[in-house]
């Protein structure tokens, strides 16, 4: 397997862009990544494009990748559209990585693009319910926040985690979002604000849930030889891991076993441990999700993330900056775009280009996305580790 470098990234602002066509969001992010890499569109040999919700939101259920890429003059090459719920973008990135790592291609493009905001919450909610088994749980009245509330209740009971500790995830990530010019939300909030905001599914309030939004991100991945031609500061893909659930009807739902598996695989492949990471972008779709991800991936010992938040250890400048971008809670979560946007964030930190939110001296970072909810398990979990 060959070494693969990321030499260019791009990302739109995340937010509610009802009047902006998806191809414009996708074009902006992709063009930024191409310019950042210093390549020409005609250099790209293969592309993977992640999206999850557009079929429901606008009806564009097919060939989105080809539609976006024609806008930047990428044509006549293999283009594959990738869907894995919230892990669609990271799965597209992984496919692009495999294409180069395998030796079949030297220059690959990964794009994630999404429009989730529709001015009609019911439509967006129905689109998101597509990440569950629609004919089963969704049909019985289980919403996505409900799914996570059930995990939260179980988790709190098992580890003694308090509502205040859960709220601190949102406080931290909203603070980080204020430092990120591309963030959907740039507004501080307090523990009281989070607890007193509208209840969605006990114990999760509206400020404990990610917002609906739109956006796109892109990355250019190349072989070592090509990287040497275009850049003096490549960022290496040290590990890529993708797993699916066990769907065991007896498993304990306060742990996500597939994240333990994916985390272990990724660290083994990278040849480093969690203690070597400077930052982690993890899938904080809900406050409880950040708890379960950092513990599941082995970044924080089981049952200790509440203490980490109390001590400020996951803030920028702490032991391990968790979601310095603002995470899904503040930066936003245009579902199919998120995984590639996380890659862009890690790349910016490793290059020292993350501005006010820069994790000083960052040498290694992790990006994690998990998607959907099936049989009270998670159907997709994707982890990447990037190194300088």
């Amino acid at each position, binding site marked *: 397997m060959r070494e693969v470098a990321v030499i260019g990234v791009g990302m739109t602002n995340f937010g509610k862009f009802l009047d902006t066509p998806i191809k414009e969001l996708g074009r902006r992010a992709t063009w930024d990544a191409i310019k950042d890499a210093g390549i020409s569109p005609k250099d790209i040999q293969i592309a993977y494009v992640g999206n999850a919700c557009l079929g429901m939101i606008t009806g564009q259920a097919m060939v989105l990748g080809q539609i976006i890429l024609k806008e930047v003059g990428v044509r006549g090459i293999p283009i594959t559209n990738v869907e894995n719920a919230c892990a669609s973008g990271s799965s597209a990135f992984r496919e692009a990585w495999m294409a180069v790592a395998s030796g079949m291609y030297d220059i690959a493009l990964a794009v994630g693009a999404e429009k989730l905001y529709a001015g009609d919450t*019911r439509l967006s*909610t*129905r689109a998101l319910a597509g990440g569950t088994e629609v*004919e*089963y*749980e969704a*049909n*019985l*009245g*289980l*919403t996505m*926040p*409900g799914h996570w*509330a*059930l*995990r*939260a*209740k*179980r988790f709190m*009971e098992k580890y003694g985690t308090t509502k205040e500790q859960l709220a601190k995830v949102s406080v931290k990530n909203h603070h980080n979002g204020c430092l990120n010019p591309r963030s959907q939300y740039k507004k501080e909030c307090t523990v009281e604000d989070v607890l007193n905001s*509208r*209840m*969605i*599914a*006990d*114990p999760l309030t509206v400020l404990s849930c990610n917002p609906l939004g739109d956006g796109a991100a892109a990355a250019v991945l190349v072989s070592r030889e090509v990287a040497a031609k275009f850049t003096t500061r490549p960022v290496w893909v040290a590990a890529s891991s993708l797993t699916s659930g066990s*769907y*065991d*009807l*007896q498993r304990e*739902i306060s742990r996500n076993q597939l994240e333990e598996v994916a985390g272990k695989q990724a660290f083994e492949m990278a040849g480093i441990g969690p203690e070597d990471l400077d930052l982690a972008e993890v899938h904080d779709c809900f406050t409880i999700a950040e708890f379960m991800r950092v513990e599941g991936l082995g970044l924080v010992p089981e049952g200790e993330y509440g203490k980490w938040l109390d001590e400020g250890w996951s803030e920028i400048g702490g032991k391990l900056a968790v979601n310095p971008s603002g995470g899904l809670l503040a930066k936003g979560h245009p579902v199919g775009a998120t995984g590639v946007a996380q890659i862009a964030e890690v790349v910016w930190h490793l290059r020292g280009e993350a501005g006010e939110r820069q994790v000083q001296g960052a040498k290694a970072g992790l990006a994690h996305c998990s998607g959907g909810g099936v049989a*009270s398990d998670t159907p997709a979990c994707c982890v990447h580790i990037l190194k300088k």
Partner: protein
Amino acid sequence: MSTSLYGEKKTLEAIPGALEIVDNQPYLVGTKCSKCGAAFFPPRYICSYCLTDEGVEKARLGNKGTLYSYTIIRVAGKEFNPPYAFGFVILEPEKIRVPAVLTGFDLNQELKSGTRMEMVIDRLRNDDQGNEIVSYKFRPVLQ
């Protein structure tokens, strides 16, 4: 069944074929593997553990269990008429987790994990055509 301006209203099951009524008692219909004893709801016709379809048969599952985790869902499609309680119940004797709307208690009352629950059949929602969608739900067993 009733009729209206919109035509005939039907009563439909949320998950077709999921329920069986025997001696006025509702039961869930799943599958069981005769080799390892595992039960599945909704039915899986290939055992997830033995990876075989041999000896995997439709089976009537229990209609009682214990509460595993629950929440009050306050934001949902209006057809579900939120707020409502939703939880996971560990079905007995199969020891598998099933999701369900919880009913038969005051939402301000706190239910503890491990509370004994029993299955009932109840209206869940109406669909866009005005048909009544029914499902299994669970309620606390009266002491």
